[in-house]
Structures are given as C-alpha cells and as structure tokens.
C-alpha cells in the first residue's frame, strides 16, 4: 500500500513538474511535503531554486526572533505582477511566495552550515491568498505541512560570538493572518516597491530587483523614475534617523498598525504612509493596552524612550506585552536601540 502511495506521489510530482513548465499554474494543489512542489533542485536544504523560482530580499526586513530568511517568488509563466508605488503589487493568480526561516550555526561564518526551521508558502489562489506552513525535520531532508505550528529549541552562535539558546515558536496557520491581513483578506507584505527597490546578489552579479523582474518579464508598468524606497534600517548612511526608524516600524508594525490592519482597534498607525505624529504615537494615550502600557501614559513621549509605551513593548519578551506579537521570543536589541535613539532625539 505504502509503495503504491509512493508511486502515485511520484507520478504527481512528475505531473506537477510538467504543469509548472508547460502552462501557467491556475489551480494550486497543496502538498504534504515541501519537496513535492519541486521548487528547488538537488538536496532540498540547499534551497537551490528552479529557474523560474526567483530569490529576493527586502531593504528593511521584518524581525523574526533573529532567524535569517531566504525568500523566493514564482510568477506563473506568461503572467506579470503589476507595479504600484503605494502598496503591495497586484500579483497574478497562481503566484507563489516561498519564505524559508533558518539559523546559521554560527552567524559569523555561513560555511559552518545552518538549520532550516520552517517554510511558509503564500499562494494567490482564485479566491484569494492562502498560507501553507511547513515544518522541517531534524534531518533537514524535507518539510511537512502542519497547520498547528510548533515550538522548537534553537542553538546558535550570534554575531558577537555568543552562544544563544532560545525557543522558536513556529506560528500556526491562523497566525500567518495575524500579520498578513488587511481588512479581512490575507495579503503579502514585502512585495511592494519601497521594500524591493534595492540590489540583489544574483548568480550573474548584483542587480536592482525591480529591473531584474522586468528583465525576467514578471513585472509590468515599472516607471522610469520616482520609485519609492524605504531606508535600510541598520545602515546609518542610508537615510536620516527618522527615515530608518520609520522604515523599521513600517515593516515590523505597519502591517497590523495601519488604518485597515488588525491593530486598528488601537488607533495607532505605524505604517510609512501615516504622517501625523499623534497617529504614529506621539503623546497618544493607549487604548485597550492592558498591562502593555507598563504604567506609562503615552505611546511615545518625545525625548523620553524610557517613558514611551512603544519602546517598553519592544523591550520585553513577555507574550502579554511584547510587540510585535509573533516572532518575538527574543528582544531585537539592535532595532530597539534604533527606536530608542529616534525617540530620544525627537523634538517635543
């Protein structure tokens, strides 16, 4: 029986492979194993992409418990993403986003290998975006579909050579929506001009990602100038302190804290498009923060990070207080330092 299953699975893989190369993927079929999709060539853990599986990264990425991420996009052959300057690109049905979360064994030396924890697949189906989470096995041979998430114990050596042991909570399928929702629909976050407008070290050499996507014929309507770009949060030469802090808050908080996001109940909007200081927290009283307020009166008190709720909630890993809610088993010290500096230098 098992053998029969394996055979039919194989046939499916072959069929899937064929359908991927011959015609645009119209209906997506969820697979039990990550390997079944055939996104990667050779040993799965190498994450060597098939030709139409294109790697990308973000100027300023979302912090996820210090995990590194390797991201890929697959746009169905013959179809194109549609550029817009404001928000997430309009992506054709059949588009697949693949995000792998891993820890290098030693952050100072990639050659020492890595451990991939989970792979999240976001698929644009005919009735909207769907999330499919996969958890890697300890042998690193494959990842398996699991809607309920898990908690793993992680060990690595960080940038400063310090040994770190931490728990890593793999979110469940619904938690994907915690970040990826606008109103009631699931949406990608990173596929926007301001996050993608930067070079990527492709095999053929570095190139601007948006230009590369044009060249690959998967992007449409890219204007010749005036393409927005967020600052790189940890590069002091890239934008003012305000630019970098706002870029950091935009990607880490703005997906929920925007007028249409799940955190709009709070009235605190941290997306890049919010320009009124009281709306992004300056002297704003909290709503329903509970003990998240930390006995402070306002989200941001200019000049006083230690009296600002925003800073307080970033500076803890207590799940009843910590923000963001997911991927925060550890405090992001470097991000915290940036926000501290930003609030400190803010004019009252």
């Amino acid at each position: 029986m098992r053998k029969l299953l394996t055979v039919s699975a194989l046939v499916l893989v072959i069929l899937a492979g064929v359908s991927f190369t011959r015609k645009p993927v119209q209906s997506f079929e969820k697979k039990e194993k990550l390997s079944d999709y055939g996104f990667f060539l050779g040993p799965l853990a190498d994450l060597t992409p098939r030709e139409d599986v294109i790697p990308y990264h973000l100027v300023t990425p979302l912090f996820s418990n210090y995990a590194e991420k390797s991201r890929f996009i697959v746009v169905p052959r013959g179809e194109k993403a549609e550029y817009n300057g404001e928000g997430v690109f309009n992506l054709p049905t059949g588009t697949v986003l693949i995000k792998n979360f891993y820890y290098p064994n030693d952050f100072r030396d990639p050659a020492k290998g890595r451990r991939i924890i989970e792979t999240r697949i976001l698929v644009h189906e005919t009735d909207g975006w769907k999330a499919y989470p996969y958890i890697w096995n300890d042998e690193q041979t494959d990842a398996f579909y699991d809607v309920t998430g898990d908690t793993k114990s992680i060990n690595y050596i960080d940038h400063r050579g310090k040994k770190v042991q931490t728990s890593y909570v793999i979110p469940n399928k619904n938690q994907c929506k915690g970040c990826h929702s606008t109103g009631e629909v699931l949406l990608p976050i990173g596929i926007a001009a301001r996050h993608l407008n930067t070079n990527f070290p492709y095999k053929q050499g570095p190139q601007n990602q948006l230009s590369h996507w044009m060249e690959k014929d998967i992007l449409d309507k890219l204007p010749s100038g005036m393409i927005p770009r967020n600052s790189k949060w940890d590069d002091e030469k890239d934008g003012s302190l305000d630019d970098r802090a706002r870029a950091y808050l935009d990607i880490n908080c703005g997906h929920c804290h925007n007028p249409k996001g799940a955190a709009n109940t709070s009235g605190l909007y941290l997306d890049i498009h919010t320009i009124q200081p009281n709306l992004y927290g300056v002297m704003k009283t909290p709503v329903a923060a509970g003990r998240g307020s930390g006995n402070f009166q306002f989200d941001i008190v200019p000049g006083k990070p230690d009296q600002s709720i925003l800073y307080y909630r970033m500076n803890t890993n207590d799940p009843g207080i910590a923000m963001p809610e997911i991927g925060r088993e550890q405090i992001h010290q470097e991000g915290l330092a940036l926000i501290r500096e930003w609030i400190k230098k803010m004019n009252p």
Partner: protein
Amino acid sequence: MKRLACICFTLLGILPACFAQMDVQKKLMAQFIDADNNSVIELPEGSFTLNASLWLDGKKGVTIRGKGMDKTILNFNGQLSGAEGIKVTNGSNITIEDLTVQDTKGDAIKTQLVDGITFRKVKAEWTRGANEKNGGYGLYPVQCSKVLIEQCEARGASDAGIYVGQSREIIVRNCRATENVAGIEIENSLYAEVYDNEATNNTGGILIFDLPDLTVKKGGFTKVYNNHVHHNNHKNFAPKGNIVGKVPQGTGIMVLATNNVEVYNNRIINNITTGTAIISYYITENPIKDSSYYPYPSNIFIHDNQYEREHTKATMKGRMGKLYHFKLKFGKNVPHIIYDGIQDEKTKGQQILCIRNNTNASFANIDAANNFRNISREMKPYDCELKISTTSN
C-alpha cells in the same frame, strides 16, 4: 526517559499531567483551524494546560462548546505565544459556551470583526485574583456586531472583566464580574443593553465610556438596568496609562463622555466614592488631539435606582481621592450621584442630564469647569425625562 517521567507522575497521582498536554494542544489547535462552517468544536471535560492561543478565523456558524463552566478548563499559565487564550476573528454567528479560560498572559477571550458572537456560561479568570500582572480583558469582543454575553463570569482582569469595544447591538445579561478593575465596560459602542448583572468588588462596577483616537468614535444609545452594583471598592490595580487606571476605587456606575445613556432600576449599594458618575473626558486630564471627538456626556437619564452607602469617606487614593479630600470636602456625606458640570458651550441651557425618582439619591454638580468653586448639591434642576432608544431606528 519520557516514559519514566510519566510513570513517576502516575505514582504521584497526577495522571492528567501525563496526558501529553502538547498533543491535546495540537489537536485543539487543529480543530480550531480546520473547523468546518456550521460545525461544533466539542471540548472535553478536564483541565488542560496550553502554551499558545486557540484561534478560530474566518468561520461561519461555529460553536465552541465545553462540558460546563467549571468542567472544561483551559489554563494558559506558561503561555509562550499569542497573548490571548481564545481568539476569534473575521467570522459570523460564532458561539462560545460552557467553558473556563484561566490565567492568560493577555486577554482571556478576544473576538474581533465577528458579526453575531455569543458568550454563554463562559468564565474568564485569573486564579490568583486581582493582580496588576493579570491580562487586560476577560471577555473582549471588539469591532463586533450582535454581541450576546450571558451567564458569564469574569474575575481578576487588570482592565475590564467584560469589555465590549467598538461594537454595536450588544446585550450583556445575567453575568457576574468581580475583582476586576472595571467589572463591565462598554466602550465606543452603540446600542447596548446591560441588565440583570452583578458587579461587585471591582474598582468600578459598570462603565460606559467614549474615548478619542478610535476608528469607531461615537458610542451611546445604551441602557443599564436591573443590575446589582455593590461594594465596588477594590483598590485600582490597572497599569497606569490605561483609562480605567483613572477610575477611583469605590465607583458604581460611570458614564464618561457618552451620549444617550439610560441608567435605571439598578441597586447601587455601598460603592464608597460614587454610586453613579457622569463625567466628561476633560476630567481625565488626558490631552485631546482628535478633533472629531465629542468629550461631553449628554442625554443621560438616571432614574428609579436604589442607592445606599455606608456613612463613610470616599477614596483617598489617586487624583480623584485628592480631589475628594481637598476640593470637594464631602467628608462622610458623599453624594450618590456626581456630575462634573463640564458642559459644551453649545448645549448650555439644554437638559442634557435628567435625574428622577431614585430611592435615597443624593447629588452634587462639582463644577469642575470652574475649579470646583460652585459645588451644588441641588438635584431639582435635573428633574426631567429623556427618551433613549437602543435601536438604530
């Protein structure tokens, strides 16, 4: 090794602990995530320790049902991810019944963007009782419509035990709230009826609030009746910054900046600071940056309530305590009904507050707008009637 541990537990007589709790959690999570529309998620009898939230999203007509309030207990002590115990989002016609949620890091049960949400015989509690480290809200529907909360209990919330926010068409009845900062709170919500509840030993019994800076700005058209609101004299243990942190210990019913509220037939007994307070947002001393916000209470009708209080002083704690002590100087003769007297210039001369036919009521307009210069205990000017509807038609 695992087996050995299990055997030890068995020997110690803690068999349930052995019951691979992680497996139960995974099973429950999967049931929540994969629930079919119009299905029932049955939770077994027993006490279960979970370390992550149970989350139901995008479902219609689902019932989450335990075996009884004190028979199915979900305990979230030791929670690692997700601040809530149970979370329901983007659904319609959802019912949660016959279960208890305990000791969550954040809110016990939060439901957001649900059209038709019923909580029935549900208990939300923090087992150590009142403590500032407890989660904020017990039962917490927000941005919901057609909310029914009945025969529920809430205990120990560091903000509000039963809290309905930014919602509409709400009934809260036959519930009991105790040892919370706010027992029952209706905030920025429309068309609520709160009746036949008991609120006791909270800092404030029942609060009807409208706050600035929210997407749903204007609440009101609310009735509060037949409730037993007594001995709400618990020390305020809310973390500062939260609006309820400003509620003085010893508050029965408080209406803050809300319009069209009727409070009647309640027994409001032995709340040492105020039986019923009608106040504007200005009294909080928080800045108002939201230009579309209306900070004054208006169209408030307080009638046929029964007031009693021991001949004792109001709270001495907090800014309100100081206010009572240094400015209001009521001594032990504290009025049952307090109005801050801060009125919109545009409504001067209009009857925005009516007080009639209460048993044993006493009153003070504390003239907060003029630094409490002309405190008046005369109730006569407020002897009038208002018609308040709790429907949109």
